[in-house]
């Protein structure tokens, strides 16, 4: 078997909250022992109620936050995030895109600088090379070179998410961690970004960890689905298996709560209403 793109073993994360002037400090067990393996080129969707630990896990996989315990391996290489022992090469391989396309871009930086910054910090490429790579990347994500000198506030939500994706891809990563990347976007823009992610995955053979609370998006984009509940994985199966028959009671509740927009469901609802 080939080396998995991502391996997570027994990852936990505790947060210590409170303990200020009022009340005693309390420990939140945000992750209670997460295991997962993801093959290269695949998309894993992580779903679950808000507060169940999706973003915490996403940040740990992206090496932005350390786990309290457990291990992480990228491309078979163990990652030791404590004591700053992550190598530049390891950092390059994993990049992250956040939900809020407004908050995640520095408003005082021009788009070109936003995208070239990771290159400047992590490589020895010349300014001209960085500039050319960023221009090419703008085109890849569906923008154009004329956007290079503009500021983030001049862009719509969907365009900003394209900029965030361009920045994430500029170092040629293998694994992209996307935390609710389309949740703040309008439906038609969401469709464009999902198409873009598909195209980029095909072109670069990317592996995606895709956090979402929207099952219709998950069904469209994922190869595998992992359902989390209060810091634990309650179900992790292929997309087709999980959509064919959710097993855990929370997964069932989640599926039953997702609105259905097909004509048959509307007919059934109207019939039930007419019957009183």
């Amino acid at each position: 078997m080939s080396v998995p793109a991502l391996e997570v073993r027994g990852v936990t994360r505790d947060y210590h909250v409170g303990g200020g002037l009022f009340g005693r400090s309390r420990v939140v067990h945000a992750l209670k022992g997460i295991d997962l393996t993801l093959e290269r080129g695949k998309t894993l969707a992580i779903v679950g109620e808000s507060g169940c630990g999706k973003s915490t896990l996403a940040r740990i996989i992206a090496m932005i936050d350390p786990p309290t315990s457990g291990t992480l391996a990228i491309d078979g290489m163990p990652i030791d995030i404590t004591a700053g022992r992550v190598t530049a090469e390891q950092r390059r391989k994993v990049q992250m895109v956040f939900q809020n396309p407004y908050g995640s871009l520095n408003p005082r930086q021009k788009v070109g600088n936003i995208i070239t910054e990771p290159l400047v910090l992590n490589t020895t490429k010349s300014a001209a090379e960085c500039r050319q790579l960023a221009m090419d990347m703008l085109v890849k994500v569906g923008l154009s070179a004329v956007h290079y000198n503009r500021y983030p506030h001049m862009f719509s939500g969907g365009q900003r998410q394209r900029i965030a994706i361009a920045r994430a891809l500029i170092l040629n990563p293998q694994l992209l961690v996307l935390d609710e990347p389309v949740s703040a976007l309008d439906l038609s823009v969401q469709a464009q970004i999902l198409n873009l992610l598909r195209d980029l995955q095909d072109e670069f053979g990317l592996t995606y960890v895709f956090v979402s609370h929207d099952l219709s998006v998950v069904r469209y984009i994922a190869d595998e689905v992992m359902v989390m509940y209060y810091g634990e994985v309650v179900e992790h199966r292929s997309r087709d298996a999980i959509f064919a028959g959710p097993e855990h009671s929370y997964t069932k509740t989640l599926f039953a709560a997702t609105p259905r927009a097909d004509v048959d469901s509307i007919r059934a609802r109207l019939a039930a209403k007419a019957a009183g």
Partner: protein
Amino acid sequence: MALLEIENLSVSFDTSTGPFKALDGASYRVEAGEVLAIVGESGSGKSVAMLAVMGLLPPTATVTADAMRFEGRDLMALGARERRAIIGKEIAMIFQEPVASLNPCFTVGFQIEEVLTTHLALRGRARRKRAIELFEAVGIPEPAQRLKSFPHQMSGGQCQRVMIAIAIACEPKLLIADEPTTALDVTIQKQILSLLMRLQAERGMGLILITHDMGVVAETADRVIVQYNGKKMEEADVLTLFERPSNAYTRALLSALPENATGVRLPTVADYREEVAP
């Protein structure tokens, strides 16, 4: 006679770059006991339209309409006092951010009792009893206890229940809910939508539900208005809209739903740009 009838409503805002037309000649009609969904992407003028009806827009807004009638009464001819008597009592509105819509400095009990005092002149034990009944009606467990809670001590879903309890306190004939579940998890959304639909049916209220979510429309509406760029694109009963949408923009929205994906790629509104009004 329709419950609410708005003809040719336009709203423009004074901005530093000149007037901006946020709503351009839209008409709305809701019958008693009917659920009307207004759906559209952000910025399409859904909130502005309903805020105009409620008289809640800032002074920078210029509102014009051929008619605005509630149960046949001309809202435009009413003085500020008469209009306020209708609004808040016969028409109630709830918003997207339940936690932000409540005052963080007062208990939720204080906030619902304030409404009961202002609009129904209830006091003392009768007022407390009514507040408890309302919390029960919206499914808040241990209502007498919960009245003493502050908003931040409750979840988003519970706060939205409180907002709904306040909104129905005066038995309004029309409830306007502006994206009431957008900030909530789908499991909580389901509960809140069921609650709204149950209250609407039990009380025979008219309900205007503003949403950007076609799934929410499919699960709730009798009739639907689709808006885009401040203009009404289409109006139809819910089944017709999903089965045979007549407008290009509606078709674009429906085919951009991931669950309707037929191929590898999702069609986007841009694919329909030639057909959709510029």
